[in-house]
């Protein structure tokens, strides 16, 4: 029986205004014209020197504190030395022996219940440039874009606490959600601003020594992450069961073929000749500053989800769904506040069901949505007061979503308002019973299904605009009255 041991390294670009060590703007490197956000510092010009971007440190601290880490009050930037065309200085400035923070944790929920994932360290470093290999026709060459070089990167490393691809995915999604809550990273895996790199090894259950580790890169979606890990577990397990050895290497994930492939084979431990960067004094964090940042942390997804369950009586699933994104949670709370008479659960269902459906179909986000929380609240209010029925409400929301009009005006212009007036409905019921004595008699004779037919008659007489619940109640009442 083989047990998979999985650890995770996450690299998150910090969405600061400027780069980690210079004043160049942080741009969307998938969009910007190459080499337009570059200066002597991030281009590694002779004589240029780095200066730490305080905002990047603040962002890093936000994450470290949100993950419950111990903050290192004097961390050190080191030089990680290696030659590569995407590394203009010939070394990457990265924290090494003294990272920004250590010993955090993140609790995730899985189908097997809650799991605690230990965070080994959180450290700051700079991103490298981007290489584009060209040359299908003609001589091959490589283009270097330094727009990305020097963008602040936060590396978040876990202990090898994962056993399944599902856990890895759960952690990655939770972490992404936290990063987005903290406003430090957009969480866009496709653009590579958030890079998740699992390392997978297998060992016989019960053995303490770890097996040979394989690192997986190019995982551009959560689906790829889960599948990549599962594939790698299977691949290694097959190898070991055939009596073969696992090679220590870095593999890439081939999205199309859903397999991993060798990228780089590690021969022993690479020597990066790390040493403290003499250009940067130790990064001293004043305790008061860290405390200030901690105090200003927003309510995080886990806490918010717990509160939603308690305050609004939501179940785990809905609470989780509503709190995964801060925007959704805020939207929900604003809608609940604007619809005091509606059950929060009902508001939740309208958001996670109909509204999410519309957003998905349109491929837009809540931020761009033309239905503000107050408008959704009005719609839910109409439904909960019985003024329109569920089916009408769905089509009204569809129209609100495309036109941005209010629920009231759509209901009015389409004549969808339900009759909930008990007196009017009572009259209709009375009329139906009076006009159909044979069916009433049959009902009292024991054919209870006739009640449904009578209900249909009332609804038809009301041209579908009567509130079905009120009709049903009134019909039951009058039938009972007649029986007596």
């Amino acid at each position: 029986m083989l047990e998979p041991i999985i650890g995770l390294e996450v690299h998150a670009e910090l969405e600061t205004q400027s780069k980690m060590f210079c004043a160049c703007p942080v741009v969307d490197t998938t969009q910007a014209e190459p080499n337009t956000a570059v200066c002597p510092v991030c281009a590694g010009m002779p004589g240029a020197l780095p200066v730490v971007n305080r905002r990047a440190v603040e962002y890093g601290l936000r994450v470290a504190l949100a993950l419950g880490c111990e903050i290192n009050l004097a961390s050190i930037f080191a030089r990680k030395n290696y030659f590569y065309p995407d590394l203009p200085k010939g070394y990457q400035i990265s924290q090494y022996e003294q990272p920004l923070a250590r010993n955090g944790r993140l609790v995730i929920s899985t189908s097997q219940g809650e799991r605690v994932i230990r965070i080994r360290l959180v450290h700051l470093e700079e991103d490298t440039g981007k290489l584009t290999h060209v040359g299908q026709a003609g001589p091959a060459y490589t283009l270097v874009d330094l727009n990305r070089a020097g963008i602040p990167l936060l590396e978040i490393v876990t202990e090898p606490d994962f056993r399944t691809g599902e856990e890895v995915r759960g952690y990655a999604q939770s972490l992404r959600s936290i990063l987005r809550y903290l406003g430090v990273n957009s969480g866009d895996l496709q653009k590579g601003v958030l890079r998740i790199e699992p390392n997978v090894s297998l060992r016989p259950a019960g053995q303490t020594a770890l097996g040979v580790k394989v690192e997986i890169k190019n995982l551009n979606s959560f689906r790829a992450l889960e599948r990549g890990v599962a594939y790698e577990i299977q691949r290694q397990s097959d190898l070991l069961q055939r009596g073969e050895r696992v090679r220590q290497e870095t593999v890439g994930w081939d999205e199309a073929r859903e397999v991993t492939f060798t990228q780089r084979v590690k021969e022993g431990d690479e020597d990066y000749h790390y040493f403290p960067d003499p250009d940067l004094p130790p990064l001293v964090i004043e305790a008061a500053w860290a405390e200030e940042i901690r105090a200003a942390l927003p309510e995080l997804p886990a806490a918010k989800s717990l509160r939603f369950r308690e305050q609004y009586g939501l179940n785990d699933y809905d609470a989780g769904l509503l709190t995964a994104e801060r925007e959704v949670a805020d939207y929900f709370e604003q809608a609940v506040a604007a619809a005091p008479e509606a059950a929060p659960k009902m508001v939740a269902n309208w958001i996670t069901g109909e509204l999410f459906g519309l957003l998905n179909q349109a491929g837009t986000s809540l931020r761009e949505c033309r239905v503000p929380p107050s408008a959704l609240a009005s719609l839910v209010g109409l439904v909960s007061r019985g003024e329109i029925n569920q089916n009408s409400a769905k089509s009204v929301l569809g129209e609100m979503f495309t036109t941005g009009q209010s629920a009231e005006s759509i209901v009015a212009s389409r004549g969808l308002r339900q009759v909930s007036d008990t007196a009017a409905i009572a009259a209709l019921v009375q009329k139906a019973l009076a006009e159909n004595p044979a069916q009433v008699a049959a009902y009292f004779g024991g054919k209870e299904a006739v009640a449904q037919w009578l209900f249909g008659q009332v609804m038809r007489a009301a041209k579908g605009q009567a509130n079905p619940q009120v009709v049903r109640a009134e019909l039951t009442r009058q039938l009972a009255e007649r029986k007596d």
Partner: protein
Amino acid sequence: MTALTTLSLAQTAAALRRGDFSSRELTQACLARIARLEPALHAFITVTPELALAQADAADHRLAEWRRLSPPFSSFANGGGPGWGLLGIPIAVKDVLCLKDVRCTAGSRILENFIAPYTATAVERLLAAGVVILGKTNTDEFAMGSSTENSAYGVTHNPWDMSRVPGGSSGGSAAAVAARLAPAALGTDTGGSVRQPAAFCGLTGLKPTYGRVSRYGLIAYGSSLDCVGALARSAEDAAIVFTSMAGRDPQDATTLDVPVETITIRDSTPLADLRVGIPQEYFVAGMQPEVESAVRAAIQTLEALGAVVEPISLPHTQDALPVYYIIAPAEASANLARFDGLRYGPRQPADGLWDVFRNTRGERFGAEVKRRIMLGTYALSTGYYDAWYGQAQRVRALIRQDFEQALARVDVIAAPVTPTTAFSIGAHGDDPLAMYLEDIFTLPANLAGVPALAFPVGFDSRGLPVGMQLMGPHFREDMLLQAAHVFQQATEWHKSSPMV
């Protein structure tokens, strides 16, 4: 016109303000002297006459404006406030400091066509003060050396004896000032590279406190040791250059926010309160006797001027050499990694990426640079790091502690700059160790980060200048400059100049 170039910087500045001559006339005189002496001296890698004349004209414009708006010049004969002392003054800049749109080689073939895209902060500040830049001076490749013999652009000759080296690595700057091609020059001092050439060329050379002058735009050698300094003909002149470029720079995180006091050099201040420590470890067997006697005589002069002299000990002095030759090369091995032929500088033809790196670096770095890159890379290797780099840092702390303890007892420390006067070109040939020993008296101040000032105190029997250095507490350059100034008021050594 040659007479213009014989004045000190302070005298020149006063004359410019009075309008005795224009900055253009002065600059032309310097350029004419450069044209005449350069073929034999070779102090410059690049001369920038068009730039210099344009800057001189701009300075003349500002000077005319200043004369129009200011009270009679007589009250400004010496001084005139910060920012005026350098207006229109020609200087030379060591070719490791970037100057926008001008070639910057660092004495290396790996940068032979590199045009700097920006200006170093120290240079920028002098430009703001109105200096005229004559050109970029010769240096040992990447400032690694003590003679300029490691320059890829040929050796500079010592104006006192053309068969000898001017010292290094700021040898070009020292030769230029000594030969009166410029009243002052910028150098850099990582292990003595301002002070040793100052001593060899009979100049006053200041290595400021580490972190006092911005390194932004200085092509790095040993980042924790590199200091931008000034070479001039007197302490007073060095003070003017130093105060104009010192101070915190937001672009260099290692500069410190200690205010730069205007150093008012006072002619009549006695040294009555000055306690001068003489470290026994700096008077070693094997040093040239004339150096020792000149330095001891200078100490007596200080005493005669009122200083209180006492023997002190800096017990870790001998450790400075091995510590330096681990730390500086380690830092250099990373600092020089960016020279890979990809983004700037010439690229050696090769098949494939790794051969581009190998060929470019292999063919374009000189032997000494490669030696230090290898030394440094080794010292940082996994498994050896703690024994070499780690241990060197620990001993460095002891050296720093030596200075702290000594400077708690005395105000300044006086010592020779070099064991010998200028040596002959080629004397150390293939013996790097002998060359390294030239720096044993200058390395400790760099490792401790303290300021040190070298100035001339005599000549040997061959007529070669002998230097002495004063070392002081962090950020007390003013104390060193003031003491040297009082010494120079009482002596004539700094006024001698070579017959070139």
